[in-house]
């Protein structure tokens, strides 16, 4: 990570007003209310289909749009580069004697820094969207795609307005809005040109659809005699009817509204106030969109409708804002768009901010797998630039379990001076921020492979292979022992293939897909060596690899011969709680009589809930084993561990943990459980550091003595 990024993260974390605003909004609940009675999956499938198909036919639709709009009297200019857009608009201004422009929101114009260019030519362009005007006065870029000035406080806005009006303005928000109304009113009437973007461009009819709440686009497109619309090619849809699902979803996802106050469909010029006909210019801008549409992975990003819901639910965005996470286009999707529109170099650092929790993917109305695309960016950056030496070395080591084991044994001895109650509470100097909010786990004195050898198991025909993963193997082998114990109660004999190694997710998450595939290749044979009915995993991250990713990874790396084996593993793989719940339902496991009721809150690990879809099973199994569930607020929000994320972005990780710990404490439960040793390291370490009475335990540890 570059120093500047670390510094800007640090500064953003000092200023948490945007996070506070998002909290007060309670977006997930208000969004759900706006979608009441609407089948979200159905509507996003339609949008994905409409926009996906448009991305495949960009050239054809652009030409059709041009033809339709020109038939109605508009002038359409197709521009490939930002320079072509700037030249066209500047020349038009010169030709028509335009000195003043009023603009309604156009992210495409910000993408190419149009205002700055116009100013150089003596043309003043004033933003009229309140948020855009505020950041224009502040000489800043948007921190949020829908509400661009969300990072500024009312006091800061009052200062900006006072300077602009040469008059002291109050900090009352209602008053401030009236000041903006008064100031901007005059500008609409004086302007020679109105400039807008568009939310949708309909090829069939040559129509621009513009949604606003403030009504500024109506004035911009009505009062000046010339209207220039700057539209990115990704706004194209084929038909009039295609606009409907987008108009329906956009306001609900963007601002939890049923519809924006104003929606305008502009097709060709309308009359001006003096009876003349308006001059309507539509600039269709490419700027890498066609290249993006041709990329098999990234064409999906053109399905974005710019609602910014991915920002509103992102646990990283809320902490650092779009000034750190993104550039003009912000957050997860912004990182992807920035990489394309502004060249890959700007993404080198910011793509590392995504923790991959998958929250955004669940609510994206364009059905874009944002974390997967960011990972793909990471892969491309990693394969172009290579991983930093230290990560590469670490990742090679964990693929070699014998070497890893030897190094960890050495670490076990080295860590002794810092250990207290099984945790490392403080680390010296340069590592100290890693233990600021969280005690670190210690390396276990005896790894699981040696613990396993001493477990006496009943023999059985039903066998399950146990995939431990690095954390259970070396940090918390007790979880593995508990898993064996519970499965034995159900008459299942557990085998532990000694040849297993890391699942490959750390390599995958770092963009090193070749090393991840090597990890998969290494594990398949040992796991299938015995004739087992199940492959049991006690770690949600490993489960993601075994159940989902290995077949794709191997195929992607041209290791097709291993794909059938990977698929066989995937079919047999179960998460521990998933299997226990099944065994309880099949009456193969019976809870003991008279169990003392204990209270528990459950943390959904990102991998468990959003990658392999396991969230009900652990709750049901734990309830059967005598635990009363006390759900915490945001139970499925990331704890901030994210594998190596906590090492690469320690400051963000710690802030995420802080919030999670509060939510856990608020339940007053005795235990917090998660079926992910990574989350448990984070949560357990945090609870230990803060001196909490709540214990973080794996479901297996909580259930090991609960069955007959």
């Amino acid at each position, binding site marked *: 990570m570059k120093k500047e990024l670390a510094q800007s993260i640090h500064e953003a974390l000092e200023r948490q007003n945007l996070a506070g605003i998002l909290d007060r909004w309670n977006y997930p609940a208000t969004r759900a209310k706006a979608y009441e009675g609407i089948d979200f999956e159905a509507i996003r499938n339609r949008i994905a289909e409409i926009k996906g198909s448009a991305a495949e036919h960009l050239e054809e639709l652009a030409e059709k749009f041009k033809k339709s709009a020109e038939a109605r009297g508009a002038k359409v200019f197709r521009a490939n580069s930002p320079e072509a857009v700037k030249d066209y608009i500047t020349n038009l201004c010169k030709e028509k004697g335009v000195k003043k422009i009023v603009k309604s929101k156009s992210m495409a114009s910000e993408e190419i820094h149009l205002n700055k260019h116009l100013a150089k030519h003596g043309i003043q362009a004033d933003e009229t969207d309140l948020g855009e005007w505020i950041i224009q006065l502040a000489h800043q870029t948007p921190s949020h795609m829908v509400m661009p000035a969300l990072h500024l406080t009312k006091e800061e806005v009052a200062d900006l307005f006072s300077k602009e009006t040469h008059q002291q303005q109050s900090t009352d928000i209602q008053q401030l*809005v009236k000041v903006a109304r008064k100031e901007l009113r005059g500008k609409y009437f004086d302007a020679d040109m109105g400039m807008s973007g568009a939310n949708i461009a*309909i090829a069939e009819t040559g129509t621009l659809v513009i949604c606003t709440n*403030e009504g500024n686009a*109506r004035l911009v497109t009505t009062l000046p005699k010339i209207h220039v619309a700057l539209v990115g090619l990704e706004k194209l849809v084929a038909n009039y*009817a295609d606009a409907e699902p987008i108009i329906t979803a956009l306001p609900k996802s963007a601002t939890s509204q049923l519809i924006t106050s104003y929606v305008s469909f502009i097709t060709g010029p309308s009359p001006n*106030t003096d009876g003349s006909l308006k001059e309507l210019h539509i600039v269709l801008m490419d700027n890498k969109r066609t290249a993006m549409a041709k990329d098999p992975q990234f064409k999906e990003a053109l399905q974005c409708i710019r609602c910014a819901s991915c920002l509103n639910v992102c646990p990283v965005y809320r902490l650092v804002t779009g000034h750190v996470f993104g550039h003009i286009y912000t957050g997860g999707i912004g990182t992807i768009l920035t990489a394309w529109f502004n060249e890959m170099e700007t993404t080198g650092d910011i793509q590392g901010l995504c923790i991959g929790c998958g929250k955004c993917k669940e609510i994206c109305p364009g059905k874009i797998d944002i974390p997967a695309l960011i990972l793909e960016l990471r892969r491309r950056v990693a394969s172009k630039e290579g991983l930093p030496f230290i990560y590469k070395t670490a990742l090679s080591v964990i693929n070699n379990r014998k070497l890893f084991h030897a190094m960890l044994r050495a670490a076990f001895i080295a860590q002794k001076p810092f250990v207290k109650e099984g945790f490392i509470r403080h680390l010296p100097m340069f590592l100290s921020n890693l233990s600021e909010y969280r005690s670190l786990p210690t390396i276990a004195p005896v790894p699981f492979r040696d613990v396993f050898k001493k477990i006496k198991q009943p023999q059985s025909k039903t066998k399950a292979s146990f995939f431990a993963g690095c954390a259970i193997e070396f940090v918390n082998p007790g979880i593995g022992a508990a898993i064996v114990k519970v499965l034995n109660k159900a008459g299942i004999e557990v085998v532990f293939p000694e040849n297993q190694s890391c699942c490959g997710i750390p390599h995958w998450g770092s963009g090193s897909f070749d090393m991840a595939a090597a990890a998969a290749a290494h594990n398949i044979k040992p796991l299938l060596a015995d004739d087992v009915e199940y492959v049991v995993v006690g770690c949600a991250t490993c489960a993601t690899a075994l159940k989902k990713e290995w077949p794709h990874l191997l195929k992607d790396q041209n290791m097709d011969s291993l794909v059938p084996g990977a698929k066989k593993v995937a079919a047999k793989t179960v998460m521990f709680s998933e299997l226990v719940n099944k065994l309880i339902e099949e009456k193969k496991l019976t809870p003991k009589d008279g169990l003392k009721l204990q209270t528990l809150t459950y943390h959904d690990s990102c991998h468990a809930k959003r990658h392999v879809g396991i969230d009900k099973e652990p709750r049901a199994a734990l309830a059967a084993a005598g635990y009363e569930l006390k759900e915490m607020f945001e139970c499925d929000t990331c704890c901030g561990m994210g594998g190596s994320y906590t090492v690469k972005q320690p400051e963000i990780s710690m802030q995420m943990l802080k919030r999670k710990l509060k939510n856990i404490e608020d339940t007053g439960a005795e235990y917090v459980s998660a079926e992910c040793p990574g989350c448990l390291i984070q949560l357990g370490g945090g609870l230990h550091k803060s001196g909490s009475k709540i214990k973080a335990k794996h479901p297996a540890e909580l259930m090991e003595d609960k069955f007959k």
Partner: protein
Amino acid sequence: MFDKFKAAAEAAGNTEVQRFGAKAEALIFIEGLLKKEEIKDTPGFYAVWADSPFLKGIDTKELAAKVPGLKFEVTRELAKNAKIGITQMEWGLANMGTLAQDSTAVEQRLASALSWIHVALLSTDKIVADLPALMTRMHPGTSNYIALITGPSKTADIERVLAIGVHGPEQLVIVCVDESGGMN
């Protein structure tokens, strides 16, 4: 359909929906509103009434004489100084309380976008279910500027606090008339 429309429209905030059986009753209500809002022949206190089918059969000269400041000619300057703008909308959407109009004629936009209070006339029988229903009735092939309006102009751009009336009307008054004769 009307009840659903009214509930949805009023849920958008600063919006009231009135319903009258006959046009004459609606006119009495509007005159009362103009009086209440102290419409007078002074800049800032004008009311502009854009061409509407509602006005068919109404002596606008007489009405203008009765209410000084009420203008039936909608120019930039008059609309800029209007407190109230009156326009007739073509359709209502029951599910969202949305109004729809072919606003190609610039007077319609001036009256509804610049005033503090927008009075929107609507024939009750022109309320349809939702956006797809509207899109079968209005088409950009025949209208250059289709405008959908739901509630007043609003923003939440400062600290995500709602503020009404940023560039357009602060208040929306929807006047529904059942008597279809004279509204079309």
